[in-house]
């Protein structure tokens, strides 16, 4: 039972793990993550990889939108830039994956710096439209720069290899994805304990006050864009080694919206929320599909009207969450936790 949380230093206030129990739970979670590939089948591993890749990408978007307050509708395109850069580095330059994936991150980072430039002059919805333009332009480049991107057919990439070990199955790719997702989650959580990260939050809360405090707005916004796109690029690079093919149709505007949905449902400005959001947006539709599939066993014709129902249910769930908890799943989680701090005593 936790009756208080007394802090006597700034370090304690900044700590990611406030109590020994939360640290212990993290170890449990890590244990589960390591044990998972040994018990799960192909289907669940595939979904886990998808969640892992989306987590990295959504973390990037949350750094930009949730923590720095800059809306982006072009996040999927940055994932695409990373994916193409990785695929090109791997196939044209023959780089191994441990160089090709960071190359993807770097390329996306540069693209992000470019697209982020207008953010000095425009913000809010206007910036959203500027980033939407980036999404459209980049998608066009993926399709039409045939010499580099392979046009509509895209690029096929061989599985990642390390000292003769091939990451060719979902089980093996899982270790790659889970490792990188864990590292990037750790890095993001720690980013906001540094001066740069705190500057992001200051800019989000009130950009003019932030500037008065001596924060270089332009530099801060651009670095937020760069870090965010770097995350997207890493996700894109992993995507390439996960899907083994990259085509322009893999990074549509709807994917950008999906990333936004993840961070909004999970919790803007929350690392934990990003994880929840990525899991929710990826797995709930799968769960609903399984329910519909189960129902068709009883009535084969049910599919025709049940199948569209799952989209409606999913949409209603998102609206419901936002109405009842605007701070997202992360806040719901916190509330449940607070309840158990005092349990079994009433508040």
């Amino acid at each position, binding site marked *: 039972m936790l009756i208080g949380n007394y802090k006597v230093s700034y370090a304690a206030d900044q700590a990611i793990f406030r109590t020994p129990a939360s640290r212990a739970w993290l170890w449990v979670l890590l244990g589960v993550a390591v044990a998972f590939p040994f018990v799960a*089948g*192909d289907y669940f591993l*595939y979904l886990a990889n998808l969640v892992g890749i989306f987590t990295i990408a959504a973390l990037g978007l949350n750094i930009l939108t949730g923590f720095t307050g800059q809306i982006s509708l072009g996040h999927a395109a940055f994932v695409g830039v990373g994916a193409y850069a990785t695929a090109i580095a791997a196939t044209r330059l023959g780089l191994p994956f441990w160089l090709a994936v960071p190359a993807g991150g770097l390329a996306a980072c540069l693209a992000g710096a470019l697209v982020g430039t207008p953010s000095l002059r425009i913000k809010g919805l206007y910036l959203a439209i500027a980033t939407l333009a980036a999404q459209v332009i980049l998608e066009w480049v993926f399709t039409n720069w045939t010499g580099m991107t392979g046009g509509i057919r895209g690029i096929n990439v061989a599985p990642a290899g390390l000292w003769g070990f091939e990451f060719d*199955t979902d089980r093996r790719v899982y270790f790659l994805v889970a490792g990188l997702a864990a590292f990037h989650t750790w890095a993001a959580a720690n980013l906001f304990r540094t001066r740069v990260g705190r500057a992001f939050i200051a800019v989000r809360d009130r950009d003019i006050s932030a500037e008065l405090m001596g924060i270089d707005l332009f530099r801060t916004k651009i670095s937020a864009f760069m870090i965010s796109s770097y995350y997207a690029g890493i996700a894109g690079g992993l995507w390439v080694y996960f899907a*083994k093919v990259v085509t322009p*149709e893999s990074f549509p505007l709807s994917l950008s919206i999906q990333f936004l949905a993840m961070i909004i449902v999970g919790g803007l400005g929350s690392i934990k929320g990003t994880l929840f959001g990525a899991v929710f947006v990826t797995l709930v539709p799968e769960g609903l*599909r399984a329910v519909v599939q189960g129902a068709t066993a009883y009535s084969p014709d049910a599919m025709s009207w049940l199948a*569209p129902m799952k989209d409606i249910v999913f949409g209603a769930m998102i609206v419901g969450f936002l109405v009842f908890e605007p701070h997202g799943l992360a806040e719901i989680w916190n509330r449940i936790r607070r309840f158990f701090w005092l349990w079994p005593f009433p508040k």
Partner: protein
Amino acid sequence: MTMTLKSTFAALLAAAMTTAGAQEEIKIGACQPITGRFAFAGGQLNAGLGDSIAFANEQGIVKGKKLTYFFEDTGYDTEKAVASFKKMMAQQNPAIMYGESTGQGKAITPELNSKYKIMYGSTSFSSELADPTTHPYSFVSGPTYSDQFGILLQYIAKGAAKGVRPKVAFFYSDTEFGKDPIAWGKQRAAELGIDVVAEVVAKVGAVDVTTEVLNLKKAKPDFVIFQGFVMAPIPEVIRAARDHGLKTTFMSTFWSMDKGIIEKLGEDAEGYMGVNPYGYYYEDTPAMNAMRKYNERVHPAEAKYRPNSYIQGWFTGMVYVEALRRTVAAGKPVTGDNLMAALATIKDWDTNGITGKVTFVNNKAAVGRVYRANVAKGIFEPASDWIYVK
């Protein structure tokens, strides 16, 4: 001695069981785009494939085996489709799978080749999936889009007056679906003595097509071939072209050849043509009659008309069944390799009017027929015999 007696007895028992006992089950799974952007065809593809397999069971085409069909909705989303594919492979271990899109076909290829090794058919007519060197387990149940372009161009070349070079424009969308046959189309046109006078790219579902139509007006093509659209902007383009007084013949490939487009176009459908790899549901051929009869019995509510996507699903089912029949008849185990080998032996196979004579070369059957809209009757009628291309 007792051991040999015992094993002989066991063998006899096993033999008796396979001949007299329960039929062995062969599973066929499908990832179908029943919801999402492809929903206009997904439900019918699913019905066609499922019915075709049920029909084959009734007829007992694959001797001593019972075929079971199961499917999942994928919402025309590549990631969901791949997940669904893996789930079905893990849970049911089917001998044959059906996929919802070109994207899914490409995404599962590495594992299809290295791990699953089963026969894979799909909704796709992409040339890429009909390349046996890179995609040894997948096939296209009909002609690829390139073949469909080849059929149309061959038809145009044949109908041209001596010494006149027909002028053709390609009107396509900026998607994989739209661009797939364009390079081959240009090459084939040059070989056949046809001039490609314009290439116009438009968005799927575009409403304002003024610029595109003006481009056509400048180029004055005799024929315009659409690719990469299903409905919009085809009616818009034809209508605007007629308003501008263009006397062009408009043509399409499979997805824009259902009779729904005639209803949509109304009077402007006059002269609209295109290639269909299969016959129409209302045609008077033995196979279509049997298909209609089956529908009247099993789905009386929908027996009046079935769109082309239903026929595509049905034909894909027929190909599965034929490959299974040949494999089982040869006494070989039902594996992906054996099924694909059996597919390659299909030559001049008579489908009694579902399509022409079917020969699988390079994992595709390059046959189709040119149809023309009959506005008064609201249907498509054959404008040529079955055309075979290489």
